[in-house]
């Protein structure tokens, strides 16, 4: 069963999707709290480098991953603090940090170009791995892939099935109401910026310690560069719902596996590389544009709930807006 080519492709989709899942779920947490961390493209690269370098130097995957999480967390906290304490535009700060972290990673990473990093061993989970199809796809992977699966389930449960999750959602929607219920809005925002940033950092570590294990980032591109933007777009595509975000990630990963198979064929690589970005625009059009209503008019009524669940996306109402406590001196 494990040798079936389709099963093997599915397993590689799940594995290659792990860094994007971690980054996009992390960003979902942060944005649900009302903070937009636009720095993903840079912070993914910088944390990936930290994971690689610290991992090599300590010969420990765990320490490497923790270092990467720390980098991701610090960057996210800077975005949060400059909004909460300094009232600066989150988009401006995030954009500057995108470029700064990216170029810092390229500069500091130059001595590590093409040096192999540590690689994480696979370990299969007993009993579960013997389930047909599902076993080899989900339960015969490495630790980063398991963490990405865990992140999907835990984030969904946390956001929609727990009391702190309810508070998290209300901080992103109606911070003033949350404040009136006696909650410290800004402390909660810091907390989820830190949690989300750590997950982004873990996603970076998943690139260098699990998916690729080699550093290839130069000013002309690499393996990681660009993925932060895709993760940010996937959060929108997912409508800020973890399960839909993860679904989007696996679609992208599946497309990449397909495109990888097409490479070397008739289609020029530049045109293949166009596809994800064209799709990004089309999906953003589908979820945020006015076309959803048009689509609903055409479709039979029975399909409406399904289409809404899959396509409707409304950002948290207070996303990107600093909270000012009234009457505070």
């Amino acid at each position, binding site marked *: 069963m494990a040798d079936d080519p389709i099963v093997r492709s599915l397993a590689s989709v799940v594995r290659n999707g792990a860094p994007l899942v971690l980054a996009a779920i992390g960003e979902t947490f942060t944005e649900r709290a009302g903070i937009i961390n636009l720095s993903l493209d840079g912070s993914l690269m910088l944390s990936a480098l930290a994971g690689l370098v610290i991992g090599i130097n300590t010969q420990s995957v765990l320490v490497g991953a923790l270092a990467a999480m720390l980098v991701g967390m610090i960057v996210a906290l800077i975005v949060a603090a400059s909004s909460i304490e300094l009232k600066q535009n989150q988009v401006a700060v995030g954009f500057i940090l995108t470029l700064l972290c990216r170029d810092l990673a390229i*500069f500091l990473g130059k001595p590590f170009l093409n040096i192999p990093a540590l690689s994480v061993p696979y370990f299969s989970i007993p009993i579960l791995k013997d389930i047909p199809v599902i076993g080899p796809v989900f339960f015969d992977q490495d630790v980063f892939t398991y963490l990405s699966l865990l992140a999907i389930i835990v984030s969904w449960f946390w956001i929609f099935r727990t009391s702190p999750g309810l508070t998290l959602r209300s901080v992103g929607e109606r911070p003033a109401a949350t404040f009136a219920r006696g909650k410290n809005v800004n402390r909660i925002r810091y907390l989820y910026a830190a949690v989300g940033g750590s997950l982004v950092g873990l996603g970076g570590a998943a690139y260098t310690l699990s998916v690729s294990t080699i550093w290839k980032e130069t000013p002309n591109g690499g393996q990681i560069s660009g993925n932060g933007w895709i993760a940010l777009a996937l959060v929108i595509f997912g409508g800020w719902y973890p399960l839909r975000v993860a679904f989007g990630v696996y679609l992208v990963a599946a497309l990449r596996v397909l495109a990888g198979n097409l490479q070397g064929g008739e289609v020029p690589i530049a045109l293949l590389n166009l596809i994800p970005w064209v799709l990004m625009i089309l999906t953003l059009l589908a979820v*945020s544009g006015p076309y959803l209503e048009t689509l609903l008019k055409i479709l039979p009524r029975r399909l409406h709930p399904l289409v809404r669940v899959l396509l409707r996306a409304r950002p948290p109402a207070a996303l990107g807006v600093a909270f000012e406590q009234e009457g505070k001196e």
Partner: protein
Amino acid sequence: MTPLQGSANTSQHSNRWLAQALVLIVGLLIIVGGIVAVLLLSGKDPASALNLFLQGSLGDATQRSLVVMRGLPILLAASGLLLTFSAGLWNIGIEGQMMFGAIFATIIARSVGNDTSGWIALALELILAAIGGALWALVAGVLKTKGRVNEIFGGVALNFIASNIALYILDGPWKYGARQQTAPFNAPALLPLVPDSGALSLPGIVIAIAGFVLVYLILKRSRWGLQLRAMGHSQRSAFLLGVRTERNVLLAMMACGALGGIGGALQILSPDPVSKGYLFPDSSGGIGFLALLVVLLANYQAAWVPLISLFFSLVPVGMLNLQTQIGLDPTLGRVFEEALVFIVVLANGAAARARHTMGEPD
């Protein structure tokens, strides 16, 4: 106003400046300290590196002219961005718009023969560049107004699409030999140089300054500029006051794209050593992002943009000398510029916070 209030105001002011200066000084110390540490760790002498940097950027007339010429595309793109920022738009797609300007200019430039009139060729190239940049900006604008796609994400995607289109063309129809580039353009297609001036080109300088002055006048003196600024404060209020906001978004994007497109053309139309004199995959070279940083560093104040553009071109020119002489990675120059903008934005925030806690009106 009583003398007492006056002194209170002065102390509030000094508090504000103190907060700003403190963050700036600490930030600059961190940046400079970081660079010195990098140099020392890689076994290079910081003092001689600074000397090489200054020689490489300001040492002689050729180097200085290089700084000016490389600053022109930054100035043009940043001028365009002043328009979009005024209207509250984040035109991250400027990078792709510059690439499209360069591609469109190449349509003319690669077919210009040695016997063509340089002035006509140049005029056509720049007009096409403006059209190319404006069209690519229009795509982002329509996605925003009609499709409600945020211009940041639309712009990022369009940037990647533009650079892949360039790659496709340069790997296919326009390929020159085995390399991913067009054939070098003939001399009439390039900007004419002032004799014995190093790399200075008067038409290039005039166009860039004209672009900036035009934007400045639009923003400060015209009704349209007032409308854009009103939209920047609140698009909804502007709309309720009768401003045609949707049309203005498209116009501002197209104007910015046109200026960026011309900037992209200048990136490839100068003779060596300013630019290469042919189209290559990374022709926009991050200049659009750099221009966004210029406007952020200027805190959206138009008057500062020309000076900062020059400074942002001085850094890479100086770094080039460090690269050839002691093998320092020029990416360090980018890191320095980005860290500087980061620190200044934080310092502005610190000043605003000091002002806020002092109860001074914003």
